[in-house]
C-alpha cells in the first residue's frame, strides 16, 4: 500500500505532462496539417506529394518559392499573385491554366505551416512516424488483437474442481476416522450423493439464473446492433484500390460529409469523373466498372452517353455492353476474334451486371445502383456528419476504421449509444479555434485563469438527450 501512495504524485505529474502534450493547438504540427490538407487540398493535390493531379505535386513546394510570405500569399489568393506578376506564380499559371487554384483566405499562418510540415513529412517519408506502430491514416483507435482467455479460465476451473474433490475426500476420510474413533457408524457420502444434494442443486440453479439473466440482458442490448456487418454489394467496389492505393480523398466521393448530415453515397456521375477514362479495372477487368456504365448509360466503346437510355429495351443495352466487354477481352488477349472462353466470360459478366442492377422493385437496368446500407442508426437518433467532420475535425477512420484497407467495407464501430457517449466524454472541442465558442465565456475565463485545461464535448452539453434525440 505504501509504495502505491508513493507513486501517486508521480502519476499526477505524468498526467499533467500528458495533458500538456495534447494541448498543442497553438503550434503548427503535421497532425493538424494532415487534417487541414485532407479538408482543403486533397481533392486537387496528390496525397503522396510526388505526383501531379489537377494541381501540381506539393512536395518541395517551399523550395520553389523565394519567401515564405509569398508562398502563403499564393495559397490564400493565387490569382492575386499572378496579377502581381510573381515569377513562380506566372510559371505555375502558364503550366496549369485555365484551372484556377481555389483561394483559402481564411487559413492562418499556423495552419499553413502545419500543412507544409505535413507535406514535407510525407514527401520526405518521415510522416507518419514509423516508430509509432499505428497504421498510417488510421489516426486513432485500432484494436490490438485480443487472445482468448477461455482456456486459462478452463484450467483454473479444472484445478479448483480437482482441489475441491481432494479436499472433499480428505474431509470424508477425516470424518470417517473421527467417527471410528467415537465408535459411531459413519456412512461415507458418495460423490453421486453430493452432486444430487439439495444445496448444490439450488446453488447451480441460482448460478444458471444469474448467468441466463446476464446473457439475456446483454443479448437484448445488442439487438439491432451490427458491428462487423459486411454485406455483399452490387459492385465489388474496392476501397483498397481507391482510397488505399490511389489515395483518393474520402470526401471526394462522400462529399456530403463536410456539409450535410449524410456523408452521401456518390452519384454515378461522380464515378464517371474518373471512369470515363479508366474503363478497365485492375482487379476485375470489365466486370465491375461496366456496371457503372450500365447504370448511367455510357457507351465505353464510343465514349459517349447513350441518348434516351432509360427507355432503351434490354436487348439493345445488352448488345452495347457485351460488344464493349468482347472488345476489351480481345484487346487484352491480343487476339483477332473472341474465343469460347471469352464468350463464356462475357456472358457471365453480363448476367452478373443484370443481377446487380435489377431487383423485384427495379426491373430495368438503367437507374441508380442499389447499395446495401451498412451503417444504420435507429430513426430516433440524429447524427450529423458535418458536425463531426467539418466542425469537430474528426478523421473518418475514427468511426469507420481503416476503410482504405478494406476490400469489402464493414461496420467497424458498434454505433451504440455507449460508444457515442464515451467519445463525447473524451473528445475535446476546437474551443479556441472556432469563434462560435466565444459564447462560453465562463470556460474562456477558466482557461485564462488556469482552472481548466480543456473543454470536452461533454462540457458543452454533448451528453444531453436532445443533442441527438429530437
Amino acid at each position, binding site marked *: 500500500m505504501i509504495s502505491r501512495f508513493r507513486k501517486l504524485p508521480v502519476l499526477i505529474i505524468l498526467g499533467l505532462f500528458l495533458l500538456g502534450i495534447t494541448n498543442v493547438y497553438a503550434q503548427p504540427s503535421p497532425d493538424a496539417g494532415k487534417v487541414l490538407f485532407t479538408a482543403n487540398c486533397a481533392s486537387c493535390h496528390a496525397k503522396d506529394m510526388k505526383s501531379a493531379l489537377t494541381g501540381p505535386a506539393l512536395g518541395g513546394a517551399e523550395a520553389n518559392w523565394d519567401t515564405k510570405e509569398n508562398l502563403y500569399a499564393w495559397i490564400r489568393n493565387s490569382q492575386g499573385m499572378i496579377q502581381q506578376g510573381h515569377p513562380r506564380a506566372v510559371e505555375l499559371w502558364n503550366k496549369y491554366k485555365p484551372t484556377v487554384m481555389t483561394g483559402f483566405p481564411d487559413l492562418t499562418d499556423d495552419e499553413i505551416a502545419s500543412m507544409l510540415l505535413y507535406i514535407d513529412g510525407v514527401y520526405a517519408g518521415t510522416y507518419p512516424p514509423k516508430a509509432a506502430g499505428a497504421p498510417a491514416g488510421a489516426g486513432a483507435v485500432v484494436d490490438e488483437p485480443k487472445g482468448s482467455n477461455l482456456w486459462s479460465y478452463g484450467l483454473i476451473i479444472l484445478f479448483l474442481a480437482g482441489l475441491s474433490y481432494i479436499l472433499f475426500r480428505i474431509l470424508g476420510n477425516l470424518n470417517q476416522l473421527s467417527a471410528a474413533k467415537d465408535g459411531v457408524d459413519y456412512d461415507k457420502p458418495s460423490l453421486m450423493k453430493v452432486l444430487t444434494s439439495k444445496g448444490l442443486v439450488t446453488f447451480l440453479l441460482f448460478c444458471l439464473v444469474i448467468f441466463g439473466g446476464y446473457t439475456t440482458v446483454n443479448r437484448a442490448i445488442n439487438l439491432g446492433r451490427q458491428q462487423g456487418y459486411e454485406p455483399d454489394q452490387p459492385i465489388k467496389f474496392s476501397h483498397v484500390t481507391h482510397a488505399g492505393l490511389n489515395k483518393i480523398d474520402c470526401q471526394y466521393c462522400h462529399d456530403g460529409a463536410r456539409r450535410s448530415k449524410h456523408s452521401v453515397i456518390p452519384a454515378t456521375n461522380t464515378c464517371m469523373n474518373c471512369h470515363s477514362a479508366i474503363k478497365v479495372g485492375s482487379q476485375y477487368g470489365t466486370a465491375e466498372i461496366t456496371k457503372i456504365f450500365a447504370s448511367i448509360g455510357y457507351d465505353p466503346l464510343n465514349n459517349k452517353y447513350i441518348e434516351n437510355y432509360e427507355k432503351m429495351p434490354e436487348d439493345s443495352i445488352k448488345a452495347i455492353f457485351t460488344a464493349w466487354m468482347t472488345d476489351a477481352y480481345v484487346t487484352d488477349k491480343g487476339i483477332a476474334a473472341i474465343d469460347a472462353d471469352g464468350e463464356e466470360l462475357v456472358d457471365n459478366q453480363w448476367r452478373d451486371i443484370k443481377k446487380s442492377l435489377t431487383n423485384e422493385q427495379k426491373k430495368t437496368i438503367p437507374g441508380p445502383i442499389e447499395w446495401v446500407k451498412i451503417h444504420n442508426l435507429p430513426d430516433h437518433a440524429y447524427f450529423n456528419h458535418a458536425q463531426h467532420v467539418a466542425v469537430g475535425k474528426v478523421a473518418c477512420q475514427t468511426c469507420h476504421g481503416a476503410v482504405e484497407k478494406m476490400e469489402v467495407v464493414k461496420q467497424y464501430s458498434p454505433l451504440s449509444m455507449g460508444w457515442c457517449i464515451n467519445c463525447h466524454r473524451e473528445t475535446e472541442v476546437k474551443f479556441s479555434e472556432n469563434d462560435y465558442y466565444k459564447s462560453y465565456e465562463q470556460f474562456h475565463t477558466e482557461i485564462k485563469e488556469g482552472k481548466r485545461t480543456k473543454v470536452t464535448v461533454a462540457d458543452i452539453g454533448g451528453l*444531453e438527450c436532445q443533442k441527438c434525440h429530437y
Partner: protein
Amino acid sequence: MDKMQNNNIWVGIKDLEQDPSFIEESGLETSLIEQIADSKNEEVFASNRRDFLKFLGFGLGAATIAAGCDIPVKRALPYVIKPDTIVPGIANYYASSYIDGGEFASILVKTRDGRPIKIEGNDLAPSGWGTTSARVQASVISLYDTNRLTGPQKSEAGNLSLTTWKDLDTKVKSALATASGIRILQISNTSPTAKKAQAEFIAKYPSAKVVNVDHSNYSGILDANLADFGSRMIPSYHFDKAEVIVSFDADFLGTWVMPTKFASDYAQMRKITDLSKAKMSRHIQVEAGMSLSGSNADNRILVKPSEQGVAVGHLYNLIVGGGAPVTGLNDKAKASLAKVASQLKNASGKSIVVSGSNIPAEQQMVNAINNTLGNYGTTIDTSNAILTKQGSEKDFDALLNEMKSGAVDVLIIDGANPVYSHAKGLQFAEALKKVKTKVAFGLSKDETNILCDFIATKPHFLESWGDAQPTSTTLSLVQPTIAPLFNSRQVESSYLTWSESPSTDIFEYIKATWAETAFKAQTDFATVDAFWDNALQLGVMSTIGGAAASFGGGTIDFSAVTKVSNAPLEISFKESISLGNGQYATNPWLQEMPNPIDRTSWGNYLAVPVNFDGDSSMVGLNGLKDGDLAKLTINGKEFTVPVIQQFGQMPGTVSINLGYGRTEAGACGTGLGISLIPFLTDNNGYAQNFSSKVQVSNKIGKEEEFSCVQYHHTYGVKGKDNDTGQMINADEAATVFFDYFTGIKGFQGSLTDRSVMYTSNLADIKANAAELDKKRKHAQYLNSKQIYGGHDDLYNNGHHWGMHIDLNACIGCGACTVACMSENNVPIVGKKEVSRHHEMTWLRIDRYYYGDVENPNTVYQPMMCQHCDNAPCENVCPVNATNHSSEGLNQMTYNRCIGTRYCANNCPYKVRRFNWFDYTTADSFPANQYKKFGEELTFGAENLTRMVLNPDVTVRSKGVIEKCSFCVQRIQEGKLTAKKEQRVLRDSDVKTACQTSCPTGAITFGDSNNKEGALHAKLELPLNFISLEEINVRSSVNYTMKVNNRDKSLDA
C-alpha cells in the same frame, strides 16, 4: 382609474360559474371523459389480464425470433446524376407565391431531398406580403392529399374514370369547334400569364366569355368602387397608419380581402415598447357575432346583421351629412356611433372605416365617409389596388340564365365550386344539365366537377409555374418545388392546347410573358436571363407605382340599404377563418385547428348569446349550453346543430360558420357539419350573409363528439375552498391545507393569486405597470427564499434559449399552431379524439375574456412548453425521460419515455401531450392505430401523406409523451451553421416555426445570454410578465401585459 385586472379573466361559462366538474378536471391531466368506455372500439382495444399474458408471451417470442433473425437489409440509393443544387440532408428554399382563391402570400418553400415539407414567409418580400396565415401554412399538406385526382377524367353515365390527355383534348376541341356559346367560370385570377393564355383561347373561340366569382362575395364593394372611382377594385388599406379603425362587420384580421397583410400592418399600431410614449390605435368593431377582428377590437358596438346598413347610414349622416336611412338602429349603437363619429373627425386622415357589407349603396356610404375624413391618399391607397377579388354576382346570374336557356354549349370551370359554394348552387346543378359539354379544372373531386363531362386535372400550386399580380403594383412568380406527382396539366397549358397555340410549354410561355412586360418595365438588368433569375430568386417584385384613382362620389341609392328586420332572432353566416367558404375543407390541419373564437374544430357550431343573470350564472339562448344539440330552422328547413355559448354575441342573434357540410371533400371534409350557403339571402342580386327567418329550439340532445377545446388543458383555474371559503388555485386544492402553529387555517399567498394574465387599459398603463413590477418583485423575492433557488450560474455559460410573446401583437389567428404541426410532425387526431381531450397540438392559443361579461374584451395567449429551469415535470419522471439541458431546454426523450404521464400531471401549464394511439403509424401494430375516418389504412399511413413529414423530427409512436421542443432541430441546425462558419451565433440562425409563421411578429425567440440579441432587448420591456412566476418554476417564456384602448364612454 381602473384597477389592473389580474385573473378577472375567464375561459367560458363553466369558468365564470365555478362549475364543479370543470374545476375538478382542471386539476387532472386529461378529462374525466377519459374513463367512459369506448364502446365502438371495444373489441379492438379491450384487454384483460389474460390478454396481458398473451401479449407478454408474444412480446418475448417476438423478441426471441427477432434476435435469431437477420436484420433486414436496407438499401441506399444514390442519384445517377446528382443535381448540383441538391445535397441530401440539406434543405433548399424556393421563393414562390401562395395564390389560392384570391388569397396571396409571398412564400419560401422548404424542400428536403426534393420534397416540399414546409412553407415559410418570404422575408425579401415588401413589408406585409411575406407573412403567412394558417391557410398558407397548411397548404403544403394539400399537395399530398390522397384524394387528388391521378389523371384526366371523363364522365360516363355520371361516373368519372381515368382517360388520356389525347382523348380529352380531341373531345373538348371538337366540342369547342362547334360551340356557339362558350363560357369560362373561374375564381378571380390575377395571373398575367393565365390572362394571356386565356386571350389566345378567346381569339381562337370568339364566343368565349369569362365570368369571375370569388369564394366569398365582394361584388358589393367592387361595384361601389366602380361607381365612385370608375374602377372595379379594392384599394389598399394601411392599418399601420390608422389611429382610429371602424369596421362594420368586416373581419379584416381573419377573412376579409387580405387578412395576413392587414394583420401585419395592424399590429404595428398595437405594440407598446415605451411606457412614457405609450400609444396605440383604437379599433371599434360594429357587429353581432364575435369575429376575429371583433375579438381584437377595443370596443364592440353590437348591432343585428340587418342593422348594419342603417348603422353605416347613421355614421354617414353624422360625418358626410344627410340622407341615409337610420330607421330601426338600436339606441345604444346610435349613441355610441355618435361618439365614434367625433373621434373619427378628430383623426381625420388618420382613420379607416371599412365594411363587410355586400351592398353597393352601403359601401358607397363608407367610401363617402372615408373621403370626407380625408383618408384617401393617407391611410387608403387607391393607386395600389388589390386585384385578388374580381367576382361579379351579376355576371354569374347572367351565366345561370344563359345556361338555363340552353345558350351555353361549353362551360369551362376553373377553381369555382358553385354547386356547393353559391347560394344558387342547386339551380346551377340543374342548369348544368342543359350545357352540352362541361369541362372542369380540378385537383380533386368536388360537388361541381363530379357533374362535369371532363376534369382536366391540374397540378397543385407547389408543382406549377405561374405568376400573379395581387395588387396593381406587385408582381410575383410561382415556381414548382417538386415534379408533378400525378398526370396533371396546368390550366394555362390546357387553354393553349385547345387554342392550338404554337407554344404550350408553360415555363417558356411565362418567361416570354415576363420578358415582354416586367423586363421591359425595369432598368436594373440588361438581359432577360439575368432579370428572370433574379425575379425567381426574389419571388416577388414591385413594379412601378400605379396611378391614384380620385373619388368621384357616385350617387348612392339609399333605398337599397338593408331594411331592419323586426324578427326576434337573426342568424349571421360567417366565413370560417380556417376553412374559408369550404374551399379548404379537404385540409386536415385546418380542420383540426380550433376556431380562434369559440375554440371548436371539425364541424360548425351555432354560437348563441349568453347573458349574465345578475347573480352568478350565465343564461344562454333557450337554456342551451355548450355541446347541446338544438334544432335550427331556417326558411322552414330544419337542421340539428351543436351549440356553443358565445360571449359577446348580441342578444337576439346567433351566428354560425360557413364552409362545412360538404358532400364531396375527401376523407376529412365530407359530411362534417352543415352547409348553410343555400340560405344566404338576396338583396337585388347581392348575397347577404344573414337571415331573419330563423328559429332555434330548446335542447334536443347532446353532441356525442363535442370537439371544442376551450376547456381542455386549462391552467390557473380557481375554485372556492369549502373549509375556508377562499378562492384558491384549483389544481392544488388537495395540497394546501396548512394548519400553522398559530392554529389559523390559511393558504400561502401565491396559491390564491395566480398570475395567468395581466390586462390594462391604455390610460392606466403606467400605474398598472408599476403594480405589476411590485408583484413580480415580491414573487421573485419569495422565490429567492425557497430551497430551489436560482440556477443563474448554471445557465449563464453558452446559450440559454428563451422566448418573448407580445400579447398586444398576437391576434389569435392560429398560423403558429399550424406551422408547429407542420414543422414538428404533430399528428392529426380527428373529431372524436379531440372531443376526448386528446388533441396533440404542442402550441395552443388560450383565449380568455375579460372586462364586461356581456360585451367583453378578448386576449389570446399562445401557450407551449415554457422550458422551466425549475421544471416540475422533470422531477417526477421515473425514468428520467424528461430532463434539462445546459442550454435551458426542457428535453423530452421519446425513446426513453414509458408513458406514466406523471409529467403531464405535474405540468402547471398543461402543455404535455400523450400519444393515446399510434396516430402517425410510427410502429406497425395495427391494434395501436386509430382510424380517424373509419378508413382501411390509418390516416397518414400512406406513403403519399408521409411525404410531408419533417425528416429531422422523430415520428412518435403510441404511449409516449411529447411537447414543444423550442424547435430543437432548428436550434441544432443554426448552431451547426455558425460553427461551420466559425462565427458567433446570430439571431437569424435560429428561428422557431411559430416565430417565422407569425404575421404580426408577436413571437421573438433567441439566446437570452446574447446581450446583443433581439430577445435580450425584448426581455427588458416594462410590460413583461412570466405566467405563474410565483410558483418558482422559472419559465423561459415572457409575455406582455395585454393593453386595450377601450373607450369606456362607448359602453354607457
